């Protein structure tokens, strides 16, 4: 059985959640996505995972993108269904000054680590996450490096983060 096209997947989610689901953007299988209202994300994910015929059993990727111009941090969920071979992308816009998004760790176990990474590198807080702490950066690192306005500190515990160019003429 061929996987459902993004248009059909969008129609099914939209039929169930109405206003909470935005328009479909992107035309290819690998970029077709829909925005979801932050408050609805857990229910939408649960529906996508459990609904017969959809069965998105895998959270393939969870990432974040900072858009200072729109003043949002977009959290991007790439969902995949091993059983049905569907691929679909959800996007949640979190306000940049206080980004809070409900956690989907209760739906896919892997989300726990992926959300920690987004929290660490972009500063998005995931509500009801079982263990939200930094994962790649040191615990006392200032700021969130993947934000567009992040400025690298000059030193970390007395260790300089820059050096003279080795190519400079002596």
């Amino acid at each position, binding site marked *: 059985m061929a996987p459902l096209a993004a248009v059909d997947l969008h129609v099914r989610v939209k039929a169930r959640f109405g206003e909470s689901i935005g328009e479909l953007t*992107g035309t*290819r299988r*690998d*970029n077709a996505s829909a925005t979801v209202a932050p408050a609805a994300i857990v229910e939408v994910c649960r529906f996508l995972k459990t609904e017969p015929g959809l069965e998105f*059993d*895998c*959270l*393939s*990727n969870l*990432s974040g*993108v*900072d858009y200072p111009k729109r003043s949002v941090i977009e959290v*991007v969920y*790439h969902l995949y269904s*091993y059983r049905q*071979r569907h*691929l679909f*992308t959800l996007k949640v816009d979190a306000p940049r000054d206080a980004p809070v998004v409900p956690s989907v760790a209760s739906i*896919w*176990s*892997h989300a*726990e*680590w*992926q959300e920690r990474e987004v929290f660490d*590198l972009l500063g998005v807080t995931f509500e009801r996450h079982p263990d939200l*702490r*930094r*994962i*790649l*950066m*040191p*615990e006392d690192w200032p700021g969130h*490096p*993947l934000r567009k306005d992040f400025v690298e500190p000059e030193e970390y515990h007395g260790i300089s983060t820059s050096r003279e160019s080795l190519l400079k003429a002596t």
Partner: protein
Amino acid sequence: MGLAGFEVEVQRPQADGGLSTEDMTLSMGPQHPSTHGVLRFVVRADGEVMKEAIPDIGYLHRSIEKIAEKVGWHGFMPYTDRVDYVAAMPCNQGWAMAAERLAAIEVPKRGEYCRVIATEFNRIQSHLLSVGSMAMDIGAYTPFTHALREREYINDLIEELCGARLTFNYMRIGGVAWDVPPAWREKALAYVQRFEPLIDEFNDLISYNRIYTERLANVAVVTAEDAIDYNLVGPNLRGSGVRYDVRRDEPYSVYPELDFEIPVGRGEMGRVGDCFDRYIVRIREMKECCKILRQCLQQLPPGPVITKVARNFKPPPGDCYVRVESARGDMGWYVVSDGTAFPYRCKIRTGSFAAISIVQKVSRNLMIADLIAVIASLDLVAPEIDR
């Protein structure tokens, strides 16, 4: 992560007068020969039995995703080698494919074949390191030398192709950097011919050794449901009996034209999804790589290997999610372009990152020595976890 929160837990003396015991908290790594990179586990153990092994990662974080935003589309290619330096070719390919998808660039047929040849040689080479070092971690040193010997021959071939023996940098956006050198094809074919029987020799040497299989069978069993829930990919997923391979199920490049099988774990030494299954899947995959390589080397079509791509490459605004089958499985590249000469965002979702997230769950109630087998069987490569 310090040891705070993992303090020694003192148990009260038992009412029946039995001895009181204490849980011990050990820090394993970040410098430990079996961790294949810098990787740390905080182990809470009751004697030799682990109650918990909590992974602590980030020691090899080089902010590769941030670098992508600063160096431009072509400039990022050499950094992709460093994402997973044991299997650099698939990382090259993932990045190239993402850029090509965004800009709708078609790669010439010969270029695609060269990519597959390079990637499959890299896969064998990576699996050899994995199975060889796994045997060594378990305590058998000789198989490691056999695996490394063969790995060196493949390094020779790849060196002729791209000039490097570790951080291979062969692919470019639009194709590959150089055509195969003269007479390389015959040399490569002859090597595949020689190498394939050595897999059986390796099996005779270690794979079915009684001590070895006893150490691996029924250890850290991952069910198919858990594997998918934790997003395990590649040989780790197939070890749990899920017949899924991006090369076949989400086809890219010239894989649809090639004939190969997808080996899965069958629980032949214990239960499906144990350490042995993950190990033996890699052994069998090397045979399939030989099959693919032979077809590619024989069918290699004439023509150019790279298409013309602007030096000042600016793909139109948009995003895409590209997946390639790396040696450690499905590797996802989420790339966003804003139409400028610099990628807006590049997220690399790697197999090892998923694999280490399941360690805490599967290591419960195992012996400390088994943790070594678990790490080796999941084929964790630290730079790929931390990026």
